[in-house]
């Protein structure tokens, strides 16, 4: 499962070329949120964007996802410029954003329904994914009837249902308590090993980034720019208490300060 050299070998799945973002485009005096971001992300690579609040990591993720337009530069997926949301990019947000009027199963099947997948097949896919995220028996529960961790599991299953090549995750575990959060990190790695995807994961937890990713991209704020990259060459599953991990944690922490 772990292949430290993969990101160096694999061709770029996502190419971020000179992306800048300024929210009030008509006023050149407003500060840039993102300033000339260049980044190549390999196929099946797990990349984490880390940085303080206001470093533009969520904005960058939304630009990759096609939800926000960049002011300059563009993002290419498979060599094609991103022009809008959808198109093989699944997203998971900090607030699970499940559809409250749909059951867990229906939420997971939502994307397939849009693609016109028949009910039988849709239900089969949804059941499999519900199983995968460990929610067997909760298929017919509504989001309000699930705990925070369960809701986020459903959200991950929903993002996977249309089998996107890219999974974009915006602090998906940020609203969870510490224990659930650790559990969900292991869960995500398990799901990721079963369904290989290119993952871009936003977090402000260094330890979360270290446990999960192939590469940590550290962003600096005002304007948001890449400060440093840290490849994480350790095989998974990783021990959070591994001395090498702790050394890397310190390294990232110092770069952040």
């Amino acid at each position, binding site marked *: 499962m772990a292949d430290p050299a993969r990101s160096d070998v694999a061709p770029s799945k996502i190419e971020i070329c000179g992306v800048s973002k300024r929210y009030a485009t008509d006023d050149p005096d407003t500060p840039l949120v993102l300033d000339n971001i260049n980044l190549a992300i390999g196929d099946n690579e797990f990349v984490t964007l880390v940085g303080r609040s206001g470093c533009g990591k969520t904005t960058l993720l939304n630009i990759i996802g096609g939800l926000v337009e960049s002011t300059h530069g563009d993002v290419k997926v498979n060599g094609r410029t991103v022009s809008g*949301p959808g198109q093989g990019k699944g997203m998971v947000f900090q607030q699970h*954003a499940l559809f409250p*009027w749909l059951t867990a199963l229906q939420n997971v099947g939502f994307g397939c329904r849009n693609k016109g997948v028949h009910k039988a097949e849709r239900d089969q896919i949804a059941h499999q994914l519900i199983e995968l995220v460990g929610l067997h028996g909760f298929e017919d529960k509504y989001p309000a009837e699930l705990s925070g961790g369960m809701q986020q599991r459903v959200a991950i299953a929903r993002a996977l249902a249309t089998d996107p090549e890219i999974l974009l995750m915006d602090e998906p575990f940020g609203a969870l308590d510490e224990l659930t959060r650790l559990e969900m990190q292991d869960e995500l790695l398990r799901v990721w090993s079963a369904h290989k995807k290119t993952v871009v994961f936003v977090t402000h937890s260094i330890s979360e980034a270290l446990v999960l990713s192939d590469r940590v991209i550290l962003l600096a704020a005002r304007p948001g720019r890449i400060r440093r990259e840290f490849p994480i060459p350790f095989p998974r599953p990783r021990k959070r208490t591994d001395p090498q991990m702790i050394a890397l944690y310190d390294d990232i922490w110092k770069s952040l300060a």
Partner: protein
Amino acid sequence: MTTSVRWQDAVLGAAGTGGLFLLWELASRSGLVSTNVFPAPTTAIIGTLQTVPLADILGHVWTSLGRIFWGFALGAVLGTVIGIASGWYRALGVLTRPLIELLRPIPPLAWIPLAIIWFGLGEPSKVFVIFLGAFFPIVTSAYRGMIGIDPALLRVGQTMGLRGPMLLIRVAVPAAMPDLATGIRIGWGLSFGVLVAAELIAADRGMGFMIMNARQLGDVDVIVFGIILIGAINLITDYAIGAVIRRRIGRWHAI
């Protein structure tokens, strides 16, 4: 536990209503209140059933329900469509909102004279006034529901490849449903109130007419009976609408 609490509440509520009726009954029977002015509920009901044929009463009820059905249906459909469209298409909202805010505070009854001039004394003038009673609460709550949609839900819909009308139908409208349901319930109550008032003014059938006619005849029993009847029918229909709403959205939305 919740169920037993609900039961207790229901029993307590029924006891309160029953107690009030009992007091009323006793006050009237003991001669504390003159029966000629305010007859006991049983006196009014028995007295009416003895003087007015049941078929006539049912006819009045049927006529009223027909009017309210058309007025309310028109108000609900137009209110829902305009409210949702105004919340979805920003430009339309900018256009319709001030107009709706301007007209909304006007009591529907103030329109009656104009309605009579426009539509005459027949059915359309009553349906129109009832329509106004239903339309404004529904259009307003539909709009509010649309404006208040969690933007994250729309973003998710977009990432799932939905846009335009499909995003509206599959995400926005269901998300606005709880607010819309509230509006529909308020609209029903309001159009019911407007109905009786409209019938008091110009009608030859209907529950409002029955009451007004009884006043001219000096038949207090029928007046009291009519008031009880209107209350009871409103209660039943409101409960039915509430039950339908709970069935539709009660599991995912606490009402």
